[in-house]
């Protein structure tokens, strides 16, 4: 049996703490580098307007990855549901029906993913790659490759409800926060979340302890589809525009946000708090770097560095033995090993 962990490591187990610290440090660094921008509130309001779609997608994907699965089709749901909404607003003048059908479309895409994965047994990475092409392609067909400008959408109560402003505060930030809180409870306090964690940990174990693995996976993918549709609503309404490839840029950013947040690549362990912090890190780096005077070219490189640092950090906390092995190797190489036995 491994020795009890040092209290120092235990403290780092508080959910999301390390990555929230990284976020705070990043904001601190931007404040020093570009005080005129980062000491005012405007930039933060701008983040609160642009990050929510990414955040909602990342929250859904957190649950998917917790269950040891992946969903690559959500960018196409962002496009498809956006088209449904835009079509209902622009052509049929019934925005509320548009919302209902956009959510339904997302749920259906997710449900089909679930059937493909859980009943037919296609690995999720392949099934959802295929459906990403399918639904993205069909969205282009449906929209005839056109964009819709939704300039007068601001008049609608729907717009004010989903992406309006309370004073300077974008309402979509509150929706995203509410979804984050709800999903935290689902993952950590609900039977469904516990089942997802066991499925991700070891699906065979989940099966023998009485989890209906197939049913829970179908529910999971359907939920992911609905959340992708919600993200699409927030995005399309905020932009007041639909274009048929919208969502395409989210795939890698959303995955990065989830993994930076500390959710295990191997499933069975996930952090909703971490995903929230990870999403803001991803969403802030670009604006932050540009404001500090660095060129936009640097954005991806910096994201890569933060990403690597975060993943290594999580690994060290999650598996202290590995962390100790690394520090032992480093010390040995630097000739410090005479200092005495390594802790633990």
């Amino acid at each position: 049996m491994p020795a009890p962990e040092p209290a120092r490591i235990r403290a780092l187990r508080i959910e999301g703490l390390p990555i929230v610290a990284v976020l705070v440090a990043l904001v601190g660094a931007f404040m020093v580098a570009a005080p005129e921008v980062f000491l005012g509130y405007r930039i933060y309001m701008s983040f609160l307007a642009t990050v929510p779609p990414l955040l909602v997608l990342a929250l859904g994907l957190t649950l998917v990855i917790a269950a040891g699965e992946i969903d690559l089709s959500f960018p196409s749901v962002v496009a498809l549901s956006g088209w449904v909404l835009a079509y209902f607003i622009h052509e049929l003048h019934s925005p509320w029906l548009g919302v209902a059908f956009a959510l339904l479309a997302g749920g259906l895409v997710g449900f089909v993913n679930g059937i493909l994965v859980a009943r037919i047994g296609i690995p999720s990475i392949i099934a959802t790659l295929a459906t990403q092409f399918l639904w993205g392609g069909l969205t282009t067909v449906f929209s005839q490759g056109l964009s819709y400008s939704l300039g007068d959408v601001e008049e609608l109560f729907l717009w004010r409800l989903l992406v309006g402003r309370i004073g300077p505060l974008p309402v979509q930030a509150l929706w995203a926060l509410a979804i984050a809180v709800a999903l935290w409870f689902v993952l950590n306090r609900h039977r469904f979340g516990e089942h997802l964690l066991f499925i991700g940990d070891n699906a065979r174990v989940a099966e023998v302890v009485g989890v209906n693995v197939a049913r829970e996976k179908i529910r999971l993918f359907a939920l992911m589809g609905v959340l992708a549709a919600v993200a699409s609503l927030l995005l399309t309404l905020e932009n007041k525009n639909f274009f048929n490839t919208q969502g395409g840029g989210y795939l890698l950013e959303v995955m990065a946000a989830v993994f930076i947040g500390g959710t295990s690549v191997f499933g069975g362990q996930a952090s909703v708090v971490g995903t929230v912090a990870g999403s803001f890190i991803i969403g802030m780096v670009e604006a932050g770097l540009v404001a500090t005077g660095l060129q936009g070219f640097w954005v991806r490189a910096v994201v890569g560095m933060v990403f690597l640092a975060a993943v290594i950090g999580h690994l060290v906390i999650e598996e202290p033995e590995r962390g100790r092995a690394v520090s032992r190797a480093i010390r040995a190489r630097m000739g410090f090993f005479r200092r005495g036995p390594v802790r633990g």
Partner: protein
Amino acid sequence: MQAAEAHAAGESWRHVVRLEKVDMTFGKVQALSQVDFEVGRNEIVGLLGDNGAGKSTLIKIVSGVLRPSAGRVEIRGRPVDLDDYSVRKAHDLRIETVHQGQTLGEKQPLWRNLFVGRQIVGRFGFIDVKKEKEIANQLLRQAIGFRGEGITAESTVRELSGGERQGIAIARAMYFEADLIVLDEPTAALAVSEVRKVLAFVEGVKSAGGACIYIEHNLAHVHEVADRLVILDRGSVVGEFAKGEIGLPELTARMIALHEGRPHARA
């Protein structure tokens, strides 16, 4: 005589579980064919057989993990609707199983492992975490005897040794007070001292009026605790002995003969 003990009068069943002409095929592989098998109310049945004889398949049918391809299953004298039978149903019918190998979620805390599949939930399916942890801690101290070893309900499974893990799996079965406990090679990963604990547990099930199906490679162990031995070979029952009908040396010889008689005997 067994039926009179411990159990509620008025119910007239003799066997806690009974399988009749059960077949199980996986694709082209016939894992079980025409198996009749039963467990009495207060009986410990030792299930023996070589690797691939069908032991695990048989108990997975009993515990609701697998649905047989054909045949009948009765529990306490009542036929089971196989379309509607599941691990959860088996739990409801007070059948608990400790499966072979890994049966715990490694990254999950012990309290989740003890209750997963039948959580204590409030409205809308939210888990009563406080209560689950409380009971888990109580179980760890009393039933398993983890004291002052730094193991609590919050510990994750990967902090535990093989024996401790098996202890958790068995404690889980014990806590839910089953009438039938199915143990699939519970001692495979254990040290000698821990094996004694498991055997004592099996005897405890018996004296508490319960029944047990016990799968074990170590013939001496099964021979010691079982009331009846059932031998499977290539999916069929090929021998059955009540306690005392067969000595350990003879049993050993028989199992070796079975092993060597197989067309593709594996080492």
